[in-house]
């Protein structure tokens, strides 16, 4: 009961103080809002990037071409050998004939050229489409595959994949750096806000001490004030995430650039982000005020 009373008092004092020092509180709230917007943006971007990366990674296929003179027995042998490699998840065989048919369907030019090929003069090769378990070991796996007899070439689009993943990684790093910088700036602003509140209430604090208020009782309102500032500061970013992301998702039809890169569906994604933003706001506010209390409130 006593704890509840003290908490109630802390919240009451903190709210009063936010209103009393309105202009200063506003400065902190605006700063925390901007920070949290960037935090939200960073989260949206990096989670989507993670999503893209996963999708691309699961889409990477290694294509193994056999030599032109490979016989049906050779194909069976290679298939057996491939099955022995641990990192290989699935193996699909595609014969010359199937490839030819596929290509003919795709393009009229191919259709005219290839329509009178017979199997022996085909310049296409029998191939295996292979998916790997661990994408990071794909290079090793490719080397192992190459050693198998009758294999001509192994291809897995390594450069494209590497470049794409590299770009995504860079985007993530930049957003993280921005978030960290902004959080530090915000914490400093909150320290200043709370510092001024502490100074404006010095007399009250000294009397509180004289009449035997415990340190926790004296400190609590200031810490709560920081948390309130953080919570208020998260309102605008949260609204922006909820409405903004949904609007963007609908506008783009859920994809970016191509069907390959799909955005994360808004629900429950935006609510999770909102919760993270709110908690971040409260924690940042609390950190700032706790620091100010430690530094300026010598009790």
């Amino acid at each position, binding site marked *: 009961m006593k704890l509840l009373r003290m908490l109630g008092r802390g919240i009451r004092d903190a709210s009063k103080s936010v209103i009393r020092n309105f202009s200063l509180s506003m400065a902190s709230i605006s700063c925390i809002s901007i920070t949290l917007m960037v935090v939200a943006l960073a989260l949206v971007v990096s989670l989507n990037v993670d999503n893209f990366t996963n999708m691309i990674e699961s889409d990477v296929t290694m294509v193994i071409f056999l030599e032109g003179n490979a016989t049906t027995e050779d194909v069976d042998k290679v298939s057996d050998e491939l099955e022995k490699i641990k990192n290989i998840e699935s193996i699909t065989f595609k014969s010359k004939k199937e490839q030819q048919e596929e290509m003919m369907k795709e393009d009229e030019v191919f259709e005219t050229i290839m329509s009178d090929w017979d199997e022996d003069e085909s310049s296409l090769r029998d191939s295996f489409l292979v998916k790997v378990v661990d994408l990071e070991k794909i290079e090793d796996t490719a080397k192992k595959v190459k050693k198998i007899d009758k294999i001509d070439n192994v291809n897995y689009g390594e450069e494209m994949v590497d470049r794409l993943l590299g770009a995504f990684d860079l985007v993530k790093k930049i957003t993280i750096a921005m978030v960290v910088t902004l959080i530090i700036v915000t914490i400093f602003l909150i320290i200043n806000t709370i510092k001024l509140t502490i100074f404006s209430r010095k007399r009250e604090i000294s009397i509180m001490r004289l*009449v*035997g208020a415990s340190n926790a009782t004296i400190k609590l309102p200031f810490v709560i004030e920081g948390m309130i500032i953080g919570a208020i500061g998260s309102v605008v970013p949260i609204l922006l995430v909820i409405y903004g992301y949904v609007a963007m998702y609908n506008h783009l039809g859920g994809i970016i650039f191509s069907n390959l890169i799909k955005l994360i569906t808004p629900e429950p994604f935006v609510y999770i982000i909102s919760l993270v933003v709110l908690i971040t706001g409260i924690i940042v506010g609390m950190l700032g005020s706790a620091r100010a209390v430690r530094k300026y409130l010598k009790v």
Partner: protein
Amino acid sequence: MELINIKSVNVRYKNGVNAIYDLSLKIKKGDFVFVIGGSGCGKSTFIKMLYREIKPNSGEIILGGLNVAKLRNSKVYKLRRKLGIVFQDYRLLPKLTVYENVAFALEVIGAKKSEIQVKTLKAIELVGLKSKTRMYPDQLSGGEQQRVAIARAIVNNPKLLLCDEPTGNLDPEKSMEIMKILDNINKTIGTTIIMATHDKEIVNKMKKRVIVLKDGHLVKDYEKGKYDDEIA
């Protein structure tokens, strides 16, 4: 039974000034003690030491079972809840009414609302300000403001009331009013009172125990004392 036991206490400020030298003293429960002496004799230091605003460099202060000299900062509130403190400059909160100023002392230690109301009104009545509970400090005279401060100091029924020149800002007539209130508190509730003052007239009229400090030394301790011009 003694409430305070001070054993060879020394206080030296950081600038090298010695404020209290080897002070040993006992104060009984229910005593009314004047601490007198000229400016800079260590009166205020003595009072501050008792409510642990300053820590002695050596020695022991046992106050109601607590070793004040060794009390850590985070535990000071335990001592303060046993004390009431009154200052020359009243130290009231200007934005709070008389009632709120007195109730503040109970609120910040987490007392119940019903308890706060009963105790606050009782304390205000004791200092004779019942008709002014809703006024703000700047609507009151100096004497009345000091009475509010006394009400705030005694609202939590402290064992000890420390007064640092409580009449310093008041004319002789108002000063006597304050002294009557303090005497009344001492006699009816039995609160031990230690009062630092340099008001000769008050000390001579009250005829209480008098401790004389000079340059940080305890020079005299009269049972029913007088203000001695030669010493102080």
